[in-house]
């Protein structure tokens, strides 16, 4: 089953005649190695469901630009259930206002793609939807690798951490490429990193100039950093680094854009196993 070619039914429910999007997506999915059946225009919910069952498809893609999606899309989910075929997921697209998406999802549509979605993203979505096992080889991040705190001067900052909190300083390192001096403080399984700029071009210098000292980023310990970056990119997650780069302590790191994580600068961090 896992190796079977993904079969997709692209369908135009209702009376809408705009099929440019449906045809372009059908072609793009074929170029991604899927088998695509296109129903043609003006299909009733029953016709679409019958075609989906007969063609043994893995997913149904609906397209509507006439504003009738609120009644047509849920109808198909309903008829699928009536035919005991509710395991076939339904996705959709077209001229669909954002406000309608929660309603459609509540009615059992798996996902709505709005105008401007790259076909690549739709293809990847379907692949993940149908073969989730291909994705679970990437485990969720294991732990918080460290929390980065921007400081103007490590020497001035350290007494609070080492004396007041009583944390152990495990090392100080300069990372020239980032223009930063880092102090590592062990706390349980994870670490705090104090980050001091060593020149004016350092991102930390800019950060402090703009916002003052304080919480700077959170790093997550992961495996397969390269594949993970690729996968995030395919999902449309904004990345600051599309390729991993060398970090402190013999690690590979990459940053995600803060908008990907609600304003938090998130770092992915992969340490060489034998270094532990």
């Amino acid at each position, binding site marked *: 089953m896992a190796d079977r070619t993904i079969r997709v039914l692209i369908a135009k429910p209702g*009376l*809408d005649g705009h099929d440019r999007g449906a045809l*372009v997506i059908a072609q*793009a999915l074929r170029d991604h190695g899927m088998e695509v059946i296109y129903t043609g*225009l*003006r299909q009733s919910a029953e016709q679409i469901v019958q075609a989906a069952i007969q063609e043994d498809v893995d997913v149904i893609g609906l397209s509507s630009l006439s504003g009738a999606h609120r009644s047509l899309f849920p109808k198909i989910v309903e008829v699928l259930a009536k035919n005991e075929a509710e395991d076939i997921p339904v996705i959709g697209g077209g001229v669909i206002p954002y406000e309608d998406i929660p309603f459609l999802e509540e009615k059992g549509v798996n996902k709505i793609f709005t105008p401007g979605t790259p076909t690549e993203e739709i293809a990847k979505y379907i692949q993940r939807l149908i073969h989730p096992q291909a994705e679970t080889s990437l485990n969720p991040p294991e732990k918080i690798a460290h929390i980065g705190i921007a400081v103007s001067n490590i020497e001035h900052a350290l007494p609070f951490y080492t004396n007041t909190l009583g944390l152990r300083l495990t090392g100080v390192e300069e990372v020239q490429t980032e223009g930063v001096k880092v102090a590592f403080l062990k706390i349980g399984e994870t670490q705090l990193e104090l980050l001091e700029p060593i020149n004016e071009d350092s991102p930390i210098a800019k950060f402090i100039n703009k916002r003052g000292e304080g919480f700077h980023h959170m790093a997550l310990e992961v495996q397969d950093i390269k594949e993970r970056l690729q996968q995030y990119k395919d999902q449309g997650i904004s990345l600051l680094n599309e390729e991993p780069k060398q970090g402190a302590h013999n690690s590979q790191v990459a940053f995600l854009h803060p908008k990907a994580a609600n304003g938090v600068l998130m770092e992915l961090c992969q340490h060489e196993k034998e270094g532990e």
Partner: protein
Amino acid sequence: MSSSFRNQQEQWKKEAEKVTERFPERKETFETSSHIEIDRLYTPDQVDEEYVEKLGFPGQYPYTRGIQPTMFRSRYWTMRQYAGFGSAKETNERFRYLLDQGQTGLSVAFDLPTQIGYDSDDSMSEGEVGKVGVAIDSLADMETLFDQIPLDKVSTSMTINAPASVLLCMYIAVGEKQGVSKEKLTGTIQNDILKEYIARGTYIFPPKPSMRIITDIFGYCHENLPRFNTISISGYHIREAGSTAVQEVAFTIANGMAYVDAAIESGLDVDQFAPRLAFFFNAHNQFFEEAAKFRAARRIWAKIMKEHYKAENPKSWKLRFHTQTGGSTLTAQQPDNNIVRVALQALSAVMGGTQSLHTNSRDEALALPTEESARIALRTQQIIANESGVADTVDPLGGSYYVEHLTDKIEEEVNSYLEQIRDIGGAVQAVEEGFMQREIHHAAYEAQKNMEKGEDIIVGLNQYQIDEEVHAELLRVDEELEKQQVEKTQSIRENRDQLAVEQALSQIKQAAQHSDINLMPLILDAVKAYATVGEICNVLRKEYGEYTGM
């Protein structure tokens, strides 16, 4: 200077004088902000035969520079915004508001069930009633739609194709009830079925019977509605489906030739119907190519009508066209950017000498436009007309090395497509074989790939994106409307003279297979008896079958 140039120039001057008697120029003299006087037309100092042959003078064959001698110096293009939603009553209120604001032309959008010949209570109509336009089932709806709107005072453009005959008959019947005779009615029906198979999708019957209905309309209108445009041959939807500019013109003109052929075959003389043919094009993003496209289309059509069809009336040679800006170029992301896109596209249509123009609203990638968005769209045209000065001389791009090259090149490539289509056996055959559909699909897919690879930049979509909150105010059609419309139509059915309806429908059925009987008078009888759009179309469905696509 060649004598032929001088003759033509003299003739143009005379014609311009004649025209300005009826439509005086907007100002006595035109000038720029620096008081530089603007002439009506600019030509090269040294002209040759080539100039006369390729460009000529505005209002003269081959009309490359425009179909009227003074163009927008006398009158701006018609600003005609497409509207219609929900019930006939709501749309009527909107129309009357627009007329109060000084608009003289109406443009009716019908909902999909009406366009495909289903009544609102048909199971196929579920969810679609009143969504993309007004729902019309019977004459009663049409009476409501034009209530208190004098049909001898307005011109009405109706975007209706497969059931165009039925809707036109309803329009005639409303006119009769108002005491307006047929010959006074003005307006346009889209009535272009070939592009429905190619790109737009609201077909009902197969191509052959559809062509027969169209020629029946041509013949009937020639005798009864001499001021009505019987067809609007449309490249708009072909372009929206993803074609290139060249394909848009080529396939539109190929379709136009198929209608001319069919009409001639049905026994009409070319000059009897050709002056009432109108065109409808798209204005897309590439400014100079679009302007050149319109100029090339005029020249190509003029040559075909004069040289190929031997039309003698100059009105048969003139390609008159409506333009709408490109809906598919609008983005859902940063929708206010669409205002700028629409302005540039509209400008290219004006540079190309359009007769009328619809500017799209910024929110069309999201939903039907709100009133505010529709107003900005109209204001965009008004700014181009009144503030930019581009309408102060005729064909200001004429003579640009680049634009003339593009015009020639487009003509050349269109002609090569026309040859290909002729070899296939004409547009009807090419449609049936899916030739145009395939060509368009290839172009659409290529455009999508180029966009995704970042080779073509769409601002706000694949570059210059921002995080945006989506909080657009959008127009929604009341879900209750469908129920009310269904009830209204069912009550009409209960209260009409059922025998009269059945007799009228059976007359249509009998005539359907006899192409020597014009269907129009029979359809007119049926709509007057309150037979519905769905009932009339169902009779013809039984006779002709349904087109099911490729």
